[in-house]
Structure formats: C-alpha cells, structure tokens
C-alpha cells in the first residue's frame, strides 16, 4: 500500500507556513514610492486553500490558527480575527474538495477567489461585531483583489502535494 504513505508535516505544512510569515513581514515594510504603498494581501489564504484541497488533516486547522494568530499580533488587529476567518475558508473548501478535484486551473482560480471572498466576508462581519462599526468596503475589496492574485502560489502548492497521498484523491 505504497499510496498510503503519510505526508511529512514539515514539508507540506511547515515550509509554507514559514514562507507565509516571511512574506507577511516583508510586505509590512513601510515603503512608499510616489505616494503609493505596498499592497497587503493575505498570504495565509494560499495554504488555507491548498491544504484543504490536498487532503483532510488534523494538523492543518491548528497550523492555520497559528498563522491567523501571528497575523493578528503582527498587524495589531483583534486577536482571533484572522484565525477564525481563515478557518471559515478552510472549512468551506474542505467541504467541497470533492468538487474541486480535477478542475482546470482557471476554474480552481475562481474557486480560490470565492474562498478569498468568503474569508474576507467573515472578517468583515467579525470586525463589525467586534468594533461595532462597518469597515470600508473599498479597502476590503483592494485587499481581496491583492489576495486573489496569489492563486499561482496556491496552485503550485497543490501540484506539489496533491498526488503525495492517493488515499485522498
């Protein structure tokens, strides 16, 4: 039963987490050129989508929770906001992962954008409840757009590990 070999958590969970943290720190640099700042995408959406597509896992939700807590503490937002928002997206993708298997790259991109929109909507609602105020929809849209453009990284991660454990094909 060679297809049942488990994935090495350090490779499919640990390394992407490390890259997400590094990219987040890098894009938090206070650089302003000609009045424009760097975008602030949610890099953690890449593993949130890819991990759910690759296979169900016990460790992945906790890895996402850790990533979300890091985002909240590093960005100075409400603790738990991004952990919960990422987990909402992860759970939704996990629930429909059978429909995603074998989809073409553009269709997967659409699904990824849907997951991003779901996560941002969850963040929007949680922030409304937490702060009793409505966040700017324009700002939410720009962050959604920047995050949706990260799909190639998610696709690369899926390609790399999708066939590693055939039990979940």
């Amino acid at each position, binding site marked *: 039963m060679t297809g049942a070999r488990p994935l090495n958590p350090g490779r499919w969970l640990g390394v992407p987490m490390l890259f997400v943290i590094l990219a987040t720190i890098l894009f938090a640099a206070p650089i302003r050129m000609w009045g424009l700042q760097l975008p602030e995408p949610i890099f953690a959406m890449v593993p949130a989508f890819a991990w759910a597509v690759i296979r169900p896992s016990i460790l992945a939700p906790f890895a996402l929770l850790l990533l979300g807590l890091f985002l909240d503490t590093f960005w*100075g937002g*409400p603790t*738990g906001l991004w952990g919960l928002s990422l987990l909402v997206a992860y759970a939704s993708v996990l629930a429909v992962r059978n429909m995603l298997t074998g989809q073409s790259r553009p269709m997967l991109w659409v699904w990824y954008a849907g997951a991003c929109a779901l996560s941002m909507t969850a963040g929007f609602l949680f922030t409304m409840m937490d702060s009793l105020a409505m*966040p700017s929809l324009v700002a939410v849209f720009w962050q959604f757009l920047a995050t949706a453009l990260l799909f190639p990284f998610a696709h690369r991660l899926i390609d790399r590990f999708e066939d590693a454990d055939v039990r979940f094909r």
Partner: protein
Amino acid sequence: MPFREGPLGDLKVPLTWTAAVALIVAVVIAVAFLLADRRETLQQQAYGVTRQTVDTVSKPVSGVIAAPGRWTGVGVDAVRNYFFAGSENARLKTELKEMRAYRDRYLALVDENERYKSLLGLKTDPPIPMVAARVVADSRGPFANTRLADAGKEKGVVVGNPVMNERGLVGRVVGVAPGASRVLLLTDIASRTPVMIDRTNSRAILTGDGGPNPKLEYLRGSEPIQAGDRVVTSGDGGVVPRGLPVGAAVKGLDGRWRVVLFADSASIDYIRILLFKDFAQLADQQALAAKVLPPVITENPDQSILGPARPAPPPATTGAAPAAPRAPTTPAPTTTRPATPGTGAPATTRPPAATRPATSTTPATTAPARTPQ
C-alpha cells in the same frame, strides 16, 4: 497486553472525521481569542505579553527589512533633488515671497494674542515633552491599521500617548513593549478621536473605517462644517491635547463628511510620540498635593440667621460712637456686636479667623435687623 491485541485494536477512526473535530476545536479556540480581545481599550494590561513579545521581536526584524526601502527612498530623493534643483529653487522663491507676508501677519497675531491672554489672565498649557521614533512596520488592511515604532518603555512611552508626524496627528499608542510601541492609526476601525471644526468649534468624533479617510460622526450644530474646513483635536475626554492638526474636511462619495489627513501628505517614516497621558499631567501636581488644608468655614452661632434675635446688650459708654450709624461704611461683624466696655475696640469681639468666612467684610446692609439701635 499490547494495545493492538486488545478489543480496541481494530478500532479505526476515519481521518476525515478526526480532521473535522480538529477543525471545530481550532474554530472554538479562535472564537475564544476573539471574544477575549480588548484591543481598543486604553489599559496597559489589555496589551498582553504575547503582543509585547511579538512587537519586541518584530522591531529588529522589520527594521532590517525596511532599511533597503528607506535607503532607496533617500537615494531617489537625492537624485530627484539633483536633477530638479533649478525648478525647485524657483518654486521655493515664490513660496518664500508668499510666506514673508504670512510671517508678518503671524508676528502681529502672536503679539495681539499674547496681549489678549494677559488681559484675560488665560492660563495656557505647558509644552508637552516628545519622543522621536522611526516606523519599522505597518499594516494597511481594512481590519487593522497600525504602525510599529522603535521607541518603547525605556523612553517613557505609555499607552494612550498621541502620535504625530511633521504635518499632523497620526494616531495614539495602544501597546508598549521594551524597545517598541504599537500605534493605532486614526484610520483603524477601532479608532475614535474627539475633534472639532476649527472655524465653528463644532464637535465631532473622528471614526476610522479602515479606509484612507476617516469619517466625522456626531457632528453638532447648524451648518457646522464646509468643505476644506480645518479639523483639529478638541481635547474632550482628555485622551489627546486640544488643537493638534488632524486634516481637512471633505464630503465623501457616500455623502458623509470625511477628513483628508494632514499626516498622509508626508511619509510616516518618522513620528513624534507626545508623552501626554491626561490633563492631570498639565496641572501643578505639587500645588494639588498641598499638605495643609484650608480652614473649615463654619457659621458663627452667635450670628445665626436661623435663631431668634438676641436682646441687644447696653451700648458701650466708653465715649466711642456706636458703630451702627457708620454701618454702611463698616464691615458687618463690627456692627452686629457692641464694643466691649472699657476697650473701645469693636474688633476684639471678632471670632477666631479660622471660624469666620473669608468674606467677613460684607457690608452691614446684609444684616440690618441685628443692628443695635
């Protein structure tokens, strides 16, 4: 007996279900974190040890990452200054010419203002000490707008300190760690700042929403605001000092009044943290903590306006004229009691100073019925 040989040895929990349970547990933990969060409070203890540690660690890391960008900006500025020195010189000369007129007007107004202050006896606030800091990281998302500055506890920064750059108010400190402090920007959705319209003194609350232009809420008064009005801090509530420049009013596409922040017209690389905690800081604490309390002022029982009028004692026969005829020009206490015989000094009947009101020189017309006839 090994576990696998026992009755539960063949029990296999489906991974999918286990993963679902793990997911639910993670969600519950995240909800608990979110409910326990108190980010918007001004309490030092609300900024937990974890956040302090992350800030302390992030400061050098982000500082190193931000350094190339800073150097690049300096280099670009140098190149731009070199190539555009001529046109900039002409622009600056024009600006200087305009500024000279403003300077003369400014000096005249300062002089006039000083005279008004002295006439009114107005007490102005003392200057507030400041700490300069460099921003090493910032978040610009819709749900969190904060900056990480490289000055912390060791420089006297505390939670609640207002933060400015060279143009205007940036935000306030919401977390302090050794060597770093977290600044909540005016644009953050949790930010609420009491402001006023400089032209009309109308009060409002500046409310962030994650976008670049925070909203003006709870505007009061009729016609309180016009486009272009200057918005400054009102000082209400004592969170920030009064009069710090914030921005200019504009009407948003959604019909709400918003503010274009002055601070946005300059880079927020370097900031100034005002070591202002509350208005008690501006008062003379030594004077407030006086050890000697003022005397307790009580009513003189002999002169109670509630009791029955006492029969008038015989007038003094020492040759001194009765005080009553001079009542309109003498203090009341001297007319309510006759002079002590043999002394001829009405003042000797005065009660101890500690039990008399400070206004003991009230004219006698206040108690004419008690005046001996």
